[in-house]
């Protein structure tokens, strides 16, 4: 599904967080949003999920999201927050079943079909043996996968991930990103994610957008965006860029000797 963002302005109170952002995200692609802290990455994701008000235009396949029904939006976008709330006393099956909410009428209840979809997703993500576990007893990596399972149960063509690897060690980071990439290919999902780890997002996303001060300051492929000059200018960081086997940039923090 194609996502169009045109001249989007978003505010917290009178403070402008995004100041005219325009992007085109082609269906089936993975867009990585990067940028220093407080530049509006998460705010933009919340705008696309219609969780915050915005000025300008955000469209799904040409439909302005402000005009869509709340449930239609939820059937179209699955939003995975940075630290998902894990409710007390809820097991994995019921947590993933929450993803079916947009398909259940107000006072309705989950159908057999909803439960089958959940069991399918749990099997796909190799989580079926976790099904009776309370979500509060899961480790960080397990909780991340279970939240991803909930997003998949939502069967939305667009998946928004806010820092999906922030709480994970390097092994689990690769595992989760590989999983997302795999799902994106098999289910033709469009993925938009924010990330702090520049190397990792460069290895997985088709294109990157760098936000700074509420505007897009660089966009393109990883090699185009992740240059030492751009990172110095916008992050104030001293880095060197190496290359992995696939030619993707590897961003290495560099401490100059003694100065």
């Amino acid at each position: 599904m194609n996502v169009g963002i045109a001249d989007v302005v978003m505010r917290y109170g009178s403070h402008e967080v995004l100041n005219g952002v325009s992007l085109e995200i082609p269906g089936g692609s993975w867009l990585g949003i990067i940028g220093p802290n407080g530049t509006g990455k998460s705010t933009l994701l919340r705008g696309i999920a219609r969780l915050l008000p915005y000025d300008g235009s955000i469209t799904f396949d040409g439909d302005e999201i402000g005009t869509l029904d709340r449930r239609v939006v939820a059937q179209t976008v699955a939003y995975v927050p940075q630290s998902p709330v894990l409710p007390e006393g809820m097991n994995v099956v019921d947590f993933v079943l929450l993803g079916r909410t947009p398909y259940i009428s107000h006072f309705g209840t989950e159908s057999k079909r909803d439960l089958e979809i959940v069991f399918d997703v749990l099997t796909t993500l190799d989580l079926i043996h976790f099904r009776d576990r309370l979500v509060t007893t899961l480790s960080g990596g397990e909780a991340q996968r279970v939240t991803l399972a909930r997003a998949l149960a939502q069967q939305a063509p667009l998946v928004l991930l806010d820092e999906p690897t922030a709480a994970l060690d390097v092994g689990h980071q690769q595992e989760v990103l590989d999983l997302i990439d795999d799902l994106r290919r098999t289910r033709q999902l469009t993925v938009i994610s924010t990330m702090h780890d520049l190397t990792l997002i460069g290895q997985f996303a088709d294109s990157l957008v760098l936000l700074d001060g509420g505007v897009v300051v660089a966009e393109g492929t990883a090699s185009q965006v992740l240059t030492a000059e751009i990172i110095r200018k916008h992050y104030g960081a001293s880095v060197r860029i190496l290359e992995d086997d696939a030619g993707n940039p590897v961003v290495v923090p560099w401490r100059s000797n003694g100065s």
Partner: protein
Amino acid sequence: MEESRSGYLPLAWVVAGLLALAAAGLFSILSGPIDFAATDVFRELMNQIPGVSVGSNLSELQSAILTEIRLPRVILGMIVGGTLAVAGGAYQGVFRNPLADPWLLGVAAGAGLGATLAISGVANLSAALLPLAAFIGALGAVALTYFVGYSLRAGRTATTLILAGVAVASFLTALQTYLQQRNSETLREVYSWILGGLQTASWREVRLVLPYVVVSVGIVLFHGRLLDVMSVGDEEASALGINVSRVRLTVVVFASLGTAAVVAVSGLIGFVGIIVPHTVRLIAGSSYRRLLVLSTLFGAVFLVLADVAARTIASPAELPLGVITAFAGAPFFAMILRRSKGGSL
């Protein structure tokens, strides 16, 4: 697959709740200064069903005590207990706060002010209008809390509402205390109403509150699944397609409506809305589909039993029911908490 769900309400639990309710009801009817044989009570109850007549061994007076005093008191106790408990559970759900209940948004303070106005005669209300005055006071307080909460710039979050409720409740309580002190001749009467009880229970009270309770408890019970969705927080629930503020408003309005109606006839019986849902939560799990139904049933059981204690402990005098619920409830609750090792609050 259904059995592997934490949000699934086993029918057996509902049946157990109904059986407990029937047993508590029968126990309460049999308890009192005049002894009845269980079989006679059973016959008399059968006779109450339209079209059934199985004869009676009871004198007219005994029959009247049973059907006009004890039976309505038991039924009213069930209605009051079930409503207070489910309203507390529902509030805890929409505010995601284990200490939330309708008291928190000013229901008790508003009802207390309304009742004080009626009893002290300040507003020239007749005593017969006491329930109405308490009812309007309770709902007025919640409306005021919503108004204050929504007009705050901090936004329409659950926390803002709770803080607004604290402010409104303090203000109304101050007003109520002032009126109470200015009219000290009615102090005792006001005080006794505030402590709560079912002494005045008759079929009239049952008929008075039943329509409000049926509608409000019914609507609240239908929100079990939505409250489960809301347990992931406002933002994620919105992302799942839930209109969070509308669900919160609906649940608060109807839980408050039911509470206001029962408070109007029973006074301020505290603690039921906190202790019953938490006990259910610790034993049966946190899913609101379980919690709301079981809280209704066991809230009714709890209050009927508490009322037996209130009537019999210092017989022939009656203890205030609000004192009993706190006196018996607090240690029981502490025990449950200890056994659960503080696991799942």
